Structures are given as C-alpha cells and as structure tokens.
C-alpha cells in the first residue's frame, strides 16, 4: 500500500530523468558527441531542433567512439550522434532513440538512431518528439 501511495505521489513528475538531463540542459548547453565530422544533415537538424526546444546552446564534442560513449554513460555529454545503427554494440550500455531513417553499413540496412544516457525518459521523450518533427 505504501508503494502505491509513493507511486501516486511521484506520478506528477513522471516520466522523469533520474540523472536530471532535461533540467541540466534547459536554458544551458546541449553537449553533443559527434562520431562523424560533420554530422549528417538529418542528425544536425534534430540536434538543432532539440536545442531549440530546450532553449539550449548546442556544443559539439568530437572524439573516438569509446571515449564518447564513456562520457555519455558518465553524464558528461547528453547525446551521441553520427551514423549509429540500432544494433550498435553499445546498445547494452546506452539508450537509443526512435529511428531517424535508414542507414546502410556494408550490406545491411539498419535504422539510424541517436544515443543518450540510460533511463533518462523525459529527455528521451523530448528527443523522440524532435526526431518525429524532423523526419515527418
């Protein structure tokens, strides 16, 4: 019963970001880890739109894939972009967005996605809305 009451009390700010990504980015800086230089147009558009939705200034961070994903997991950057397929081996450690279209790697065609920190569900919702606006 106490669980149910606690759940109801916390329901007013659900879905939430346990690591407060939305709160940190809003009105501040959106740090984007870029795996390609430059980002493909669809990815750049989504990042710009997301930054606009959160009144944030986008800041691109470049680096090697393992470095960027490690920073993402640690919460040092907010999004990783750059031709990430939905079956990326990093999928176990990060959360992936809805598809931004398709991507051909060697002979396989996969959904193109962005990566964010796991469990940041409010931020994921905002980002997915930005993706939908750009893609549709």
């Amino acid at each position, binding site marked *: 019963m106490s*669980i*149910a009451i*606690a759940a109801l009390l916390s*329901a007013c700010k659900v*879905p939430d970001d*346990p690591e407060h990504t939305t709160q940190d980015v809003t009105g501040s800086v959106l740090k984007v880890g870029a795996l390609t230089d430059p980002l493909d147009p669809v990815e750049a558009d989504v990042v710009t739109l997301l930054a606009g939705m959160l009144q944030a200034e986008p800041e691109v961070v470049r680096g090697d894939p393992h470095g960027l994903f490690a920073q993402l997991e640690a919460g040092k950057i907010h999004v990783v972009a750059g031709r990430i397929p939905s079956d990326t081996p990093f999928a176990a450690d990060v959360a992936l967005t809805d598809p931004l279209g398709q991507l051909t790697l060697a002979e396989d065609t996969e959904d193109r996605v962005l990566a964010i920190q796991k*469990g940041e569900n409010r931020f994921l*919702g905002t980002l997915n*809305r930005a993706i939908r606006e750009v893609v549709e």
Partner: protein
Amino acid sequence: MKHDIPDEIEKKLRRAARLEWWSIFWLLTIIAVMYFAMGSSQAMKTAWIEDTLSLLPPILFLLARKFENKPATDKYPFGFHRAGSLGFFLAAAALTAMGGFLLYDAASALILQEHPTIGNVTILKWDVWLGWLMVAALVYSVIPPVILGRMKKPLAHATMDKILYTDADMNAADWKTGLAGIAGIIGIGLWWADAAAAGLISFDILRDGLRNLRIAVAELLDGAPRELDSSDIHPIVQTVTDKLRKRFPGHAVQMRETGRFLRASVVPANGAELDRGEAGKLTSDDQFWRLVAVGRQLQDLPEPAEQDGSKTA
C-alpha cells in the same frame, strides 16, 4: 477405488473448478495485454513471464481433479489420488520459480543501478509515454488475481486442496509483482527504492513457494500429513493415531497423504518389514530383496481395547 466425497465438499470443488476456469480466462487476457505493452522493458518481461507461470496452478488443479477420482486400473492399481500430490509439487515449484525470477530481477537492478529506459509513441496524434501504457497493463493484471485469490483461499481450506491453496498464493504473488513492476517503471524516489521494494516482495513470494515445496516434498516422500499452510504435522494425525492404538494394542500407526486423502497403516510396533524368508516364498530368488512389506486393508475395525496399554512410540 472411488471414494464418496461428501456432497458439500463436492459442491465446493465444483465451485473451485469454475473459479479456475475463470482464472485461466482472465490470465490469458492479461498475458495478451502485457505482451503488447511490454516493448523491450526487462521489468515488463519478468512480469509477463510470471503471469504466464501463474497459468500452471489452475491447469494443474483441473487436471488433478479430472484424474483423482478415476477408478484404479491394472497399470495404476492404487488409483490416482496422488495426481493431486504431483500437481501440488509442480504448482509449488512454479511459485518458487516466480519468486526466484523476481529476486534475480531486483538484484540485477540493484547491482546495475539502472532505471529502465522507456520511450514514447504517437497514438492518434497523441504523444504517449510507453510507461503509462505499461502501468495501465500492470494495473489490469493486478485486479483479477486479487479477487480470484481471495475467493480461492476459503475453498482450499474446506476441501484440503493444496493446489488450490498454492494457486491462491500465486494470485497474491501476482498482484505483488504487479505493484513491484509499477514501482519499477514510475520510480518511487530514490534509485534503490524500486529495486529494494521488488526484492522484499520477491522474498515474500519465495518464502511462500519454498514452504509449499517443503510440504509437497513431504507428501511425495510419504511424510506424515501436513497442515495446509505450514509444514507442521496436521493435528488429525495425533487424533487418528491415538484412536487406532486403542483398537490395536501393541501396534504403531503410520499415516500419509495421497492428494487430499489420508491413509493410515497399523503395523507391528516391533517393525513392519517383511521377513526375508517370507519374501522368498512369494517371489523369484533374484527379486526377493525388493519386496519389503505386505499390508492388509481393513474395512471393519475392532472395538477399542478396555485397557489403554499402548504408549509405545
């Protein structure tokens, strides 16, 4: 080996069977709803597996009921009362597995310190967080078991049906895991609180499962009849043993359980094992060691002895 079950008990058993058919119907709808809501959420997958597992006790109850009153055959000369014992063991194992699943899930959530990632979908132009759909499915999955479980417990007590009793425990576990799932999706504040809540619930379910499993193992090993809700020996054993000892001075009484029924054997106090020589007269030489006892069933019991001289253990 057909036994006349009193009308009153038979009526309750029929009512229990109807409840079990309803359980299966509701569980199937729950399993379908949960399947469509679960997406890639690990917590939902666990809840779904648990709902699927809880189909087992109702099915076992109906099967055991179908078999237990079948007449004895050449292949099953003792009849099928023990179908109930076997069903009870499997149901108890399912309940234990359910507790184990939830414990594993809670422990890995605590160790990984992760919140489930749940995205959103567009339904009829509305942006809906999938978590809300999952919570709705979980709330739906909680309601029928609560009601059915409460209706099953008194019937299980009245009919001494251990599968039904385990099923009622399973229903109680269903709604507890449903609440744990909701807590895990919404998050109840501190990061460890959801996993800790699920962990506590899993211990509760595991305890019920292991207790039932202990009783079931005792039954399969010809242990003395146990109480429905604990592994203590049922008081009826003492009553029947005392009375039989008065009728058979110098004898010991062994009691065991076959499904919901009880069997008592009166054996010589100084050992009931068949003499090897006697066994040899009955069977071939290389098999005689396997024949350890010969029993005789009684329909009429002798009058109690005047003197109560059988206080031997």
